[in-house]
């Protein structure tokens, strides 16, 4: 989410996840509390024995306060299921928050690498190396014909989920997004909206990922996702060009109003913030707003989420309190950045 990396005007992030299980234990659903503790300890000890891995932050998720678990979810370091589950479970996170290893999620291990922009190949390189190193210390459940065995048959084989998060506001405005969905589904790719505070899909962010995990190699699965993304990027750029040439005033007005609300609102929900930030993000990309950078917007997407605001404030807040805190944070941040940009120009 740093706003850097290839195609980062449209591609927010690239993520690869591997599901692995230890051969000597039942899958999580059939694990006793003692089994969960043993797995947690075993993986923790082995992770520490790997050179270069001892610098990982290691957090016992079951011992964290609710707001801290939510905070990790908002930073996409653990899944919502992992945050809300019960029993011994943990997560190991590297310094720059690109690598995280969830222990005792749906599978014993869920290894994840995330990169800014479209960068699946380097994500694969890193996760493959981590997986090899872990596998040299742990015995994975592996079947000669079916590959890596997982708690859910939908993950069996490579255990790999490759996903790319895209920002596609112009395809949404021009009503072409459904067409893109249909064509992706035809080639075995899943499309999901980015979810907000509740479970409501949020406007213009879409995650594309592989649906099948068996019968294709990891490289083929990555190839399938990374092959289709440039086509979607090209569509989105074409739609943006169309909007700006055909309807510049309306587009500029919509974006400026969105920016205006973010700069002045006194109370604002996370849903509205996401929608408005989405418009402003496109405005920055199109050069219609020049006192913000993409990295600012990406940062705001993360930091205006509920747990982030509560951590920032240092105490628990109800929905109304969060909406006020969010508006205050946005006003201050945008005012400061705007001033810095104006100073730089003078």
């Amino acid at each position: 989410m740093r706003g850097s990396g290839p195609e980062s005007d449209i591609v927010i992030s690239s993520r690869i996840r591997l599901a692995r299980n230890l051969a000597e234990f039942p899958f999580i659903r059939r694990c006793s509390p003692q089994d969960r503790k043993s797995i947690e300890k075993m993986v923790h000890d082995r992770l520490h024995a790997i050179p270069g891995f001892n610098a990982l932050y290691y957090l016992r998720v079951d011992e964290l306060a609710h707001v801290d678990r939510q905070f990790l979810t908002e930073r996409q370091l653990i899944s919502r299921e992992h945050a809300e589950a019960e029993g011994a479970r943990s997560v190991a996170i590297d310094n720059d928050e690109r690598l995280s290893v969830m222990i005792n999620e749906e599978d014993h291990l869920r290894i994840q690498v995330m990169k800014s922009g479209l960068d699946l190949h380097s994500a694969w390189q890193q996760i493959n190396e981590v997986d090899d190193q872990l596998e040299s210390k742990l015995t994975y459940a592996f079947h000669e014909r079916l590959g890596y065995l997982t708690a859910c048959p939908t993950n069996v084989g490579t255990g790999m989920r490759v996903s790319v998060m895209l920002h596609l506001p112009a395809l949404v405005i021009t009503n072409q997004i459904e067409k893109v969905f249909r064509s992706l589904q035809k080639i075995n790719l899943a499309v999901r909206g980015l979810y907000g505070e509740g479970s409501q899909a949020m406007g213009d962010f879409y995650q594309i990922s592989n649906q099948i995990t068996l019968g294709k190699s990891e490289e083929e699965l990555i190839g399938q996702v990374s092959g289709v993304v440039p086509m979607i990027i090209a569509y989105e750029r074409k739609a943006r060009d169309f909007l700006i040439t055909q309807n510049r005033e309306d587009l500029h007005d919509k974006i400026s109003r969105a920016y205006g609300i973010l700069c002045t609102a006194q109370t604002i929900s996370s849903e509205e913030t996401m929608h408005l930030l989405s418009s402003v993000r496109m405005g920055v990309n199109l050069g219609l707003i020049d006192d913000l950078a993409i990295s600012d917007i990406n940062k705001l997407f993360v930091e205006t989420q509920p747990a982030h605001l509560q951590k920032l404030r240092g105490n628990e807040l109800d929905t109304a309190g969060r909406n006020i805190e969010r508006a205050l944070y946005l006003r201050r941040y945008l005012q400061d950045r705007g001033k810095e940009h104006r100073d730089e120009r003078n």
Partner: protein
Amino acid sequence: MKCQQCEKPATFHITELTGEKPHELHLCEQCAQSYLTNNPSGGTPIQPSLAGMLHHQLKVADTAKELAKLDEQVCPICGISFYEFRNQGRLGCPHDYTCFGSELEPLIVNIHGDSQHAGKHPKHHQQTSQEQTRLIQLHNDMKAAVEKEDYERASQIRDEIRKIEDGQS
């Protein structure tokens, strides 16, 4: 045969028995998934879809009596019944892929369109599935020995586990 909703080959054949007459549907995996997800059961998206797929698959293949018998089938390693798997959509241990193999295989082919792994293999501990099942079994035995405070037996089992893990079995 083509999928009734798109151009892809139909790999999923559903016989709906809820109406007056059996109603046949021929769909590709995606359309079948979305059909099953949007149909009854509710809940989170993956589980009903998986449970739904199994449900329909079994409806076509077996009589109620056979199905009830199948549901009672229990994995000797982790103790999960086929009924529990059908309901929860999650397996209990790696051995379930072998012990429920004949029911899981068509489901796996429906989901992935394939039944042969083509990706990476672990480089270090390459055990057979039987050795891996033996590992879970030994692990359970060790827990039981420790509970009974039979530490001599527990240490024998531990040595046996190490042998398998180090590839000396």
